[in-house]
């Protein structure tokens, strides 16, 4: 595995950490006071810093360090969370994301923004939040990351790295409110119990103890009682724990620093003062080997002189004459005799993890394991499975046609094959399914930025972010969502003053929801703003010649005008949402995904945009029907029931419309053949079959087709990719006999049947 691959993994992990960071901050913002949330946030920043340090990404390390310092204050309850603090932190998370992106892709970032945030963060950390101009930032704190960052680059040899220990000493003393006791040495008790994860991630207790030995004089006691007999031992488990007495002229932070990269994978505790009792207890146990502690020179660890050490005693005293180092944990040069010389620790951890993944042999059942797979490979697999499904259908068909169906063995085999194919397909699809969470999280940032630009107070509430949908859908979701969110904040929500004047909360709420509904994913963006200004939209539409001045439009129709391509709103839109991209583009990109978008708006109460998208773009359960000698597929998810119309149930409604009575309701009857221009005249309903469908708007319609052929799973082949978009048709598929069948876009057909008010884009002549 070369360096670039490792780096790539690092950046992928950064993305996950950034997402974790942001969701954690948002939870805190929403009042989550669980310390574990703060920990998770801290951990995320910390991991990014650690990895960035290993790759020498100084800027990233420096910023992460400042951020982390402030978070640490929150973690240790030195700093109370406030909305101001959260604001700064959320911005910092954005900057961290930018820095990460800049480190990966090159490019620069806004340095002034970073430095302002650094000052704000430091002000918070010092307990003197200064929202405006912060005084000169504490210099020592800034130096620390700068000094830490270049270390990994110096890992080429075993030479001691020249450090100015004085600087660190000063810094630590300054940072330590506790133990500075007149330059005297203080004693700490460290309890350290690694979990097996610590080792699995390439950390090594030995290295940590060595680093600790550099902080001060150690008395180490290893507790080995939990060690099982050799045949029950998991060689990769963690059984040892340590009780360590540290005598040092440094402060507690210096000790914590040693464990900072391991902290999450071990039980770790530092308490000031010596826990003589614990040590004494141990001494009693080891009384059969009474022995005075013998000073132990750290220089021995570097393989230089052999040094006689008196025999086994319960506690080995390790003392170190050299001045202590405050940055040991991240210092590979010092680790060199034990660590592979060319690998900084974090990198080693990554490599070790990667090795584990490669070697599927030593799979220890623990946390669910994941692998990263190139998306192309998954796509290829999905494509192949698609072909397999088609092939299986063809095989089944040819068995039927050749009437070899008499043999039950063949039928049984075919059935099993079908079952298997189905299962394979489901499993493959599941690989691609991802929660919408990452996209939703990105929206948080967009909301913040726009709220800042427009001076509005906005709170983004997300729901159902674990709703899963195919990766392709997710990838294409971000852009339309961004536009809609921008629109919602820019136009939907009012300014705080206006909101207050209207008796609303000054803070506008934007609600982003995802849920599964009848085999599709439905995403809603709801704001509690002013709603659509229908008068304005209407006059604009008249001005642009979209509608006749005297046309009589329903509210719904007016609302939907904003999706019209000709609806230029340059005057109305500000420079935020009006960047040359209108809602028509949003609508088009959603349609290209096989989705639909609709809007409902209540004046003064806000608007709701609803997008409905297919869960997958690959397969579909469909009912195969015949319409005017054409074979069509109707998505099964849309069909509520099928029925054979009877003459007494059919009622004419106006010159062209018909209704069908179903039990005690009337339902518009839509002749699919007529709508799609397969035939000029309306067919006789009695000769056909009615499919009762649920349309996106919620209403039921009866679609009339000539006959039902059967029900089958079909592989979706995009019409857009292979031909062009055809209104009323969602996609195409290949049937068992090799013929192409079109998949009906039920909602488009229902919309088209409603009349012609907006159907300029819905002329259905192109269907063939």
């Amino acid at each position, binding site marked *: 595995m070369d360096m670039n691959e490792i780096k790539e993994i690092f950046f992928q992990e950064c993305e996950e950490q950034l997402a974790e960071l942001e969701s954690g901050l948002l939870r805190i913002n929403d009042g989550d006071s669980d310390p574990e949330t703060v920990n998770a946030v801290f951990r995320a920043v910390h991991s990014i810093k650690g990895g960035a340090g290993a790759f020498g990404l100084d800027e990233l390390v420096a910023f992460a360090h400042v951020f982390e310092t402030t978070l640490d204050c929150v973690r240790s309850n030195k700093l109370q969370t406030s909305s101001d603090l959260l604001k700064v932190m959320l911005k910092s998370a954005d900057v961290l994301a930018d820095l990460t992106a800049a480190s990966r892709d090159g490019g620069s970032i806004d340095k002034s923004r970073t430095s302002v945030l650094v000052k704000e963060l430091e002000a918070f950390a010092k307990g003197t939040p200064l929202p405006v101009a912060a005084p000169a930032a504490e210099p020592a704190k800034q130096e620390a990351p700068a000094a830490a960052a270049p270390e990994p680059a110096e890992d080429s040899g075993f030479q001691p790295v020249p450090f100015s220990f004085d600087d660190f000493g000063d810094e630590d003393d300054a940072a330590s409110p506790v133990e500075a006791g007149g330059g005297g040495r203080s004693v700490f008790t460290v309890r350290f119990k690694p979990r097996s994860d610590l080792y699995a991630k390439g950390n090594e207790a030995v290295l940590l103890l060595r680093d600790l030995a550099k902080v001060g004089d150690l008395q180490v006691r290893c507790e080995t009682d939990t060690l099982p007999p*050799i045949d029950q031992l998991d060689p990769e488990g*963690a059984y*040892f724990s*340590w009780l360590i007495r540290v005598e040092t002229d440094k402060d507690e932070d210096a000790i914590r620093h040693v464990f900072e990269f391991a902290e999450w994978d071990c039980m770790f505790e530092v308490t000031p003062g010596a826990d003589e009792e614990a040590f004494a207890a141990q001494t009693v146990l080891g009384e059969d080997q009474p022995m005075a502690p013998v000073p132990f020179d750290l220089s021995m*660890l570097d*393989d230089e002189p052999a040094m006689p*050490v*008196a025999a086994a005693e319960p506690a080995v005293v390790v003392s170190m004459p050299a001045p202590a180092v405050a940055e040991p944990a991240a210092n590979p040069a010092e680790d060199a*005799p*034990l660590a592979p010389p060319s690998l900084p620790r974090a990198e080693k951890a990554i490599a070790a993890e990667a090795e584990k993944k490669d070697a599927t042999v030593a799979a220890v059942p623990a946390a669910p394991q994941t692998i990263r797979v190139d998306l192309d490979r998954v796509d290829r697999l999905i494509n192949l499975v698609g072909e397999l499904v088609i092939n299986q259908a063809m095989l089944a068909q040819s068995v039927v046609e050749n009437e070899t169906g008499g043999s039950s063995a063949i039928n049984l085999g075919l059935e099993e094959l079908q079952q298997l194919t189905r299962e394979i397909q489901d499993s493959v699809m599941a690989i691609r399914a991802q929660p919408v969470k990452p996209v939703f999280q990105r929206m948080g940032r967009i909301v913040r930025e726009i709220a800042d630009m427009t001076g509005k107070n906005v709170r983004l509430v997300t729901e159902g972010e674990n709703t899963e949908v195919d990766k392709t859908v997710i990838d294409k979701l971000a852009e339309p969502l961004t536009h809609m969110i921008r629109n919602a904040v820019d136009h939907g929500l009012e300014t705080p003053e206006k909101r207050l004047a209207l008796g609303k909360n000054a803070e506008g709420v934007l609600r982003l929801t995802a849920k599964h509904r009848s085999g599709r994913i439905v995403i809603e963006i709801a704001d509690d703003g002013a709603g659509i200004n229908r008068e304005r939209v209407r006059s604009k539409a008249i001005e642009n010649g979209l509608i006749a001045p005297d046309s009589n439009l329903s509210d719904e129709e007016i609302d939907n005008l904003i999706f019209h391509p000709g609806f230029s709103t340059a005057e109305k839109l500000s420079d935020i949402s009006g960047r040359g991209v209108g809602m028509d583009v949003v609508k088009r990109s959603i349609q290209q995904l096989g989705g639909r978008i609709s809007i409902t708006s209540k004046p003064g109460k806000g608007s709701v945009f609803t997008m409905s998208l297919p869960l997958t773009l690959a397969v579909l359960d469909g009912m195969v029907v015949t319409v005017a000698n054409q074979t069509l597929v109707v998505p099964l998810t849309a069909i509520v029931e099928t029925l054979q119309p009877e003459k007494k149930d059919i009622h004419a409604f106006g010159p062209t419309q018909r209704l069908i009575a179903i039990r005690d309701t009337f339902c518009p009857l839509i002749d699919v053949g007529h709508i799609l221009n397969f035939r000029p005249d309306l067919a006789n309903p009695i000769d056909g079959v009615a499919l009762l469908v649920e349309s996106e708007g919620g209403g039921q319609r009866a679609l009339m087709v000539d006959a039902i052929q059967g029900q089958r799973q079909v592989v979706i082949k995009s019409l857009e990719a292979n031909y062009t978009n055809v209104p009323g048709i969602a996609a195409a598929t290949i049937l068992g006999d090799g013929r192409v069948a079109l998949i009906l876009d039920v909602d488009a057909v229902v919309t088209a049947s409603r009349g012609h008010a907006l159907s300029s884009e819905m002329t259905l002549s192109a269907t063939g």
Partner: protein
Amino acid sequence: MSSNDAAAKILKLPEVLDLNAASRLHEQVLAHKGEDIDIDASEVTRVGAQCVQVLLAAAKSWRAEEQSLTVRQASDAFIKTLQLLGISDEALLPKEILK
């Protein structure tokens, strides 16, 4: 990597006993279960805590079965790491090798 010599019942430890070596070391030690073994740690340049766990577990188990398991030779690195870890097991750090 040097391996054990079953006939002489000497288990020669490899140079590097890091976390990747723990499983293998475990197998090697288990292969000698029931017999006296002398461990030669003279070539060890690096030893991690997990391998120490294996060795110490072995030492305890051997003792429990009244078999002998003794480190006869040890490199400085081996000795120092054990001392750093606070391990003072007589079998792993016998007085002879500490002089």
